[in-house]
């Protein structure tokens, strides 16, 4: 589904990603872990099409297409979804209106008719339950005045609404208390099926107790330096990242 080959990316002339290789197949959950500043969020942003970053070399193919050729909104239409680490507040745009616009743009791209008001509302209701989010929250301005946990739940709600093929969760666990973490993880797990895939970007192992990865990749200094199964996450939790640095021969 997703294939990243020797990806180099920089921001304002500073190289952050220094040769990433990654293969993601349908039905898989990949965790990307690593210390602060290793390039985890940059990778998530580059996949979603953020223009602040320059891709210097390498390639990304998604469902057989060159992802780098596509603008951010075209990637979303093809099924890429980024759950933001810091969801943006947009005063004056309600979540409901936002989702209706987004959903219908995606449907238009797929050659489908826009959803009528009744179908849209019933879909909203169904997905709201999934992340235990309240209707009143969704009729308010997008993320404005939301608590950290509400913002993250809103991200997963949007994911549920748009049904992407590739979801990238960028530090969705940061700042979440354990209850909110369970709700978010539960939502993600319910959305999982054999046709979609998830990349979980995280610093800590805790989220991975709930969203169990098939693969764990350790990102360090812009490269994936180690790949393993879910037990690798436990090892990192126990021993920290220093041994990785030593293994990578940089510490």
């Amino acid at each position: 589904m997703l294939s990243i080959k020797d990806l180099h990316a920089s921001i304002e002339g500073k190289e952050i990603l220094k040769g990433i290789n990654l293969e993601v197949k349908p039905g898989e959950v990949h965790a990307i872990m690593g210390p602060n500043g290793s390039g985890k969020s940059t990778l998530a942003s580059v996949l979603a099409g953020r223009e602040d970053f320059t891709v210097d070399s390498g390639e990304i193919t998604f469902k057989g297409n060159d992802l780098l050729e596509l603008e951010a909104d075209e990637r979303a239409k093809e099924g890429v979804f980024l759950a933001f680490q810091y969801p943006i507040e947009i005063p004056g745009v309600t979540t409901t209106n936002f989702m209706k616009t987004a959903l219908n743009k995606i449907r238009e791209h797929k050659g489908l008719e826009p959803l009528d008001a009744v179908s849209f509302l019933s879909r909203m209701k169904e997905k709201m339950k999934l992340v235990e989010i309240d209707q009143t929250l969704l009729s308010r301005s997008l993320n404005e005045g939301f608590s950290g946990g509400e913002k993250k739940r809103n991200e997963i709600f949007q994911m549920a609404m748009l049904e992407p093929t590739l979801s990238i969760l960028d530090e969705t666990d940061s700042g979440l208390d354990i209850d909110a973490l369970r709700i978010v993880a539960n939502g993600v797990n319910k959305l999982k099926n054999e046709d979609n895939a998830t990349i979980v970007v995280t610093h800590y192992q805790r989220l991975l107790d709930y969203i169990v990865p098939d693969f764990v990749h350790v990102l360090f200094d812009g490269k994936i330096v180690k790949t393993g199964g879910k037990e690798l996450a436990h090892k990192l939790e126990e021993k920290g990242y220093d041994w990785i640095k030593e293994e990578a021969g940089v510490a």
Partner: protein
Amino acid sequence: MSKLIKEDIDKFFIGQFEAFENSLNGESKKPLHAKRKQAIENFKSDGFPHAKNEEYKYSNIAKTFGKLFNVENLSDDNFSLSLDEATRYFIPELDAIRLVFVNGVLDNKLSDIDTLPKGVHIQVIKTAADDYAEDFEKHFNTHEIEGADNFSELNTAFTKGGVFVKIDANAVVETPIACYYFNDAKNSDVISQPRNLVIAEKNSQASLIESYVTLGENTSFTNAVTEIVVKDDCVFNYYKYQNESNQAIQVGATMVHQLGKSVFNGVTLSLNGAMLRNNLNIAIHKEHSETNMYGLYLLDGKTHVDNHTVVDHKVPNCESNEMYKGILDGQSRGVFNGKIFVRQDAQKTNAFQSNRNVVLSDDAEVDTKPQLEIWADDVQCSHGATVGQLDLDQLFYLRARGIDKQTAKSMLLNAFASDVLSNIKIEAFRTLIENKINERL
């Protein structure tokens, strides 16, 4: 055609006044004419405001007038506006008391005022000065107000074709009064100087819309004044809408005298013109009143819009809120100057003011100057101004959900404008404005 300088313009208007005076028969002894004569004398002192005048520093009306206006190609009565044509500029689906002005003069045929709702009186200002002599003596050009200037004097001097509107005490007028000002510049340049007096008697409620249009390619100069007296316990909603031609120069003053326990809501919407200057001057004379001023200017091309507002808190326990927003593209220019006076007696005043701007192009410009002048010590006041670009993080967030750049941009700008537009309480009018904005964005 040579460019006129300020001195030429002063001379021109003084000459115009002499001709105007000669055209008035049997009015020379009337009180209204005494006011006209006093006004032209006041105007003569310093003439047309020029760039050295601090209040016109960013909007040199004299220069624009001198450049665009051809006094040799001037005619105020060479027009042929039909109802069919005028209808195209009316607010669709709006049930209104319709007043149509052509070149500053009320046109009875195009207006719809034969049957008025109970409690509403409308008359052309010249005859109303006789019929409502007492109201005129009390309220016509009698209240001193901060922000009045030589344009207001010039307008007073040429008082003739505007209207007098009176809302009776306790009347709740649900049908808005819509004034459409047409400048017919199809065949020649046009000057229009409508002058209105509106009196809302105690405990009445009414809404007034003023909409300005110039037809044709020639230059128009509008110098309008609307005085509004809002008496005790009134609720008065005022809307000003400018979607002018590229050759339209406009100075418009709305002067509001607000009495006790009353509410005045003003919304100013500017979309197009050569140079538009809005003076919204409000004096609060009695306690426990509330004043709300909202404005949106959505500009492109070379449109220049200047909003000057004054709120003068003369008495205690009143509240004023002001929010003006601008979206500027092309080579447009927006000027905001908001002044709040809190006089020594005006304790317990709450006054808030903000001006926010989004600049979309490299060549657009905003000059903003929020001002507070506070003489009382127990007050809550705040003011602020921002000028920025479209928020790239917000734009990316929307795009990351599949919304294309154009739609995302339009959503963000609509959201930015929405807290001004939500104050348009007349649905048909709000719909029109929303549609105009969507066309533009």
